[in-house]
């Protein structure tokens, strides 16, 4: 128990430190003292605005998105008993993106509508994947590997739908949609944050509440059933919840892959196996990971920014391949 406490302190400290570093770093140099006073609302109005309206909402959104993806990935990896599962690879993010891009194509600018469209898309993608896995599987909820494969194919299908939706869009819309599909927290604003914070908090709460069931599902279908879990309905419920958690991140920040893949592994490497602490830890580590990826995205090549999803993919793909080798 003693060493566990240290893990939590370390995760919390790293997250806090990264948030502070990120707040103090940008193309405009703002000394630490001014950052602190700007946070309190005093000092030069422009500096206050940069800290409070540009950097802070961005960091908060990065943290929320990272936490959502990390938790979603943990739940999916546990439920599917597959260390390679994550919302991006399962087609969940792709489905959400289809919903959002269709909303864009109809000129929707309201955050709420785009979020709802993303939820609908993610929901359809999940149902499709479950149907395919069930049709292919022998019994019950189907083979988790089939589900993973179905997810990958549905992701490819989602991509095709997006390309078709964008084929005849005006150049600036295409550039905007592509940018969004590559993931970014650059357009974060205080007005939109309560929505995503609410969705992530709700999803996180329910996942933590059902964490014991994930523990049992992770043992395998038969042991779980023997221990009194209604395997099919329980797995479906958690899968859907993880999908909605991922969809809310997609609605807020576009497609950010591989965070949901890497984060649970990092937390498990710290010796945390039970899903309740694992999900909480994945939230903290995910937040820290996306905050640092975004810090890189906005400082590596000024005056422009790198797409956040590309930065996480550059980090994530080698990790994915290493995991694949380990599991093979």
């Amino acid at each position, binding site marked *: 128990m003693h060493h566990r406490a240290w893990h939590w302190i370390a995760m919390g400290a790293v997250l806090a430190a990264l948030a502070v570093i990120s707040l103090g770093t*940008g*193309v*405009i140099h703002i000394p630490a003292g001014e950052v602190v006073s700007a946070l309190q609302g005093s000092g030069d*109005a*422009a500096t*206050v*605005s*940069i800290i409070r*309206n*540009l*950097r802070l909402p961005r960091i908060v959104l990065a943290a929320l998105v990272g936490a959502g993806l990390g938790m979603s990935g943990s739940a999916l990896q546990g439920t599917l008993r597959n260390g390679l599962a994550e919302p991006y690879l399962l087609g969940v993010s792709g489905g959400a993106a289809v919903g959002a891009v269709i909303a864009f194509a109809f000129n929707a600018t309201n955050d709420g509508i785009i979020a709802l469209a993303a939820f609908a898309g993610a929901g359809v993608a999940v149902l499709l994947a479950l149907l395919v896995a069930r049709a292919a599987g022998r019994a019950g909820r189907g083979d988790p590997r089939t589900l993973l494969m179905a997810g990958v194919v549905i992701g490819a299908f989602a991509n095709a739908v997006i390309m078709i939706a964008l084929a*005849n869009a*005006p150049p*600036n819309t295409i*550039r*905007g949609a592509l*940018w*969004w599909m590559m993931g*970014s927290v*650059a*357009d974060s*604003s*205080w*007005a939109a944050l309560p929505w995503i914070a609410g969705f992530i908090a709700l999803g996180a709460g329910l996942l933590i509440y059902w964490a014991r069931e994930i523990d049992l599902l992770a043992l395998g279908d038969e042991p779980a059933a023997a221990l009194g879990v209604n395997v099919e309905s329980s797995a479906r419920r958690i899968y859907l919840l993880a999908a909605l958690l991922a969809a809310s991140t997609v609605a807020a920040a576009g497609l950010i892959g591989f965070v949901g893949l890497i984060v649970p592994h990092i937390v498990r490497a710290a010796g945390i196996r039970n899903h309740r602490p694992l999900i909480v830890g994945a939230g903290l580590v995910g937040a820290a990971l996306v905050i640092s990826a975004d810090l890189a995205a*906005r400082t590596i090549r*000024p*005056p*422009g*920014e790198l797409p956040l999803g590309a930065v996480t993919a550059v980090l994530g793909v080698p990790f994915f391949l290493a995991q694949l080798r380990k599991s093979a």
Partner: protein
Amino acid sequence: MLHKRFVALLLLAATTSCARDATQGAPEADDFGDPIIVRSAPRRIVSLNPATTDLIFALGAGDRLVGRTHWDVYPEAAKAVRDLGSGIRPNVEAVLGVRPDLVILYASKDNRAAASELRTAGVNTLSLKIDHIADFYYASRTIGRLLGDSARGAIVADSVERTLKRVRATTQSLDKPTVFWHIWDAPLITIGRGSYMNELIEIAGGRNIYGDVDQTSPAVSIEDVLKRNPRYIITGPEGSLKIMKDPRWSEAPAVRDRRILVVDTAIVGRPSVRLGEAAESIARLLHPKELN
């Protein structure tokens, strides 16, 4: 006809000092390196670039246009011309379907294959990379020549050039306020040195804060714009509404002090016949006291 050819030759001789001309003796080539072929005046023209569509109307050949891109909506009469879709990677079959005898393309890498395919099909092509103001002068003279009306091509180029010179002369001695041109909000896109819009700002008596960036339309971060602290923000009507209601822009001095200049995107949107008008309108916005 013969007479026109003669005038064309004279004008050609007069314009060979142009820096863009190929080495002497070799046939003149377009921006894809394809030889420029001047045959009898084309009767069925497809223009796959909004700037050349506008130009062809100015050259009095609008009635010979049989195809345009989806985005060519100026002048108003262009809307009546058949919409052939995108001007980048165009649908070659659709282009051939309107039986053109001249197709004018924007010379970007994406269009290289289309130009070759059209030439293979026996259709004359002219591929021009019109990014800068000088490119427009060249386009006007060259297209005029192909249309068998070099005189008019030269007149259009000259009149734009004269207007721009006049605007430059009036702004020369004035202060040069810094300008951020807001093209698009997500991602935030502006203009760099590679764009005619950068030249328009300079001629109008301003200084583009991203004039040091080589690209045509670089994506930049808001924080970097705040750092460069432009005196003015130029944008279209939509862009100005977006900036005004976005809290991230609220403390930018240009926004706080209402120095957002709204330009008519119909005038400044293409490097074409309205370049002079565009520079003039921007100059008036940048220097209201001195020029109005």
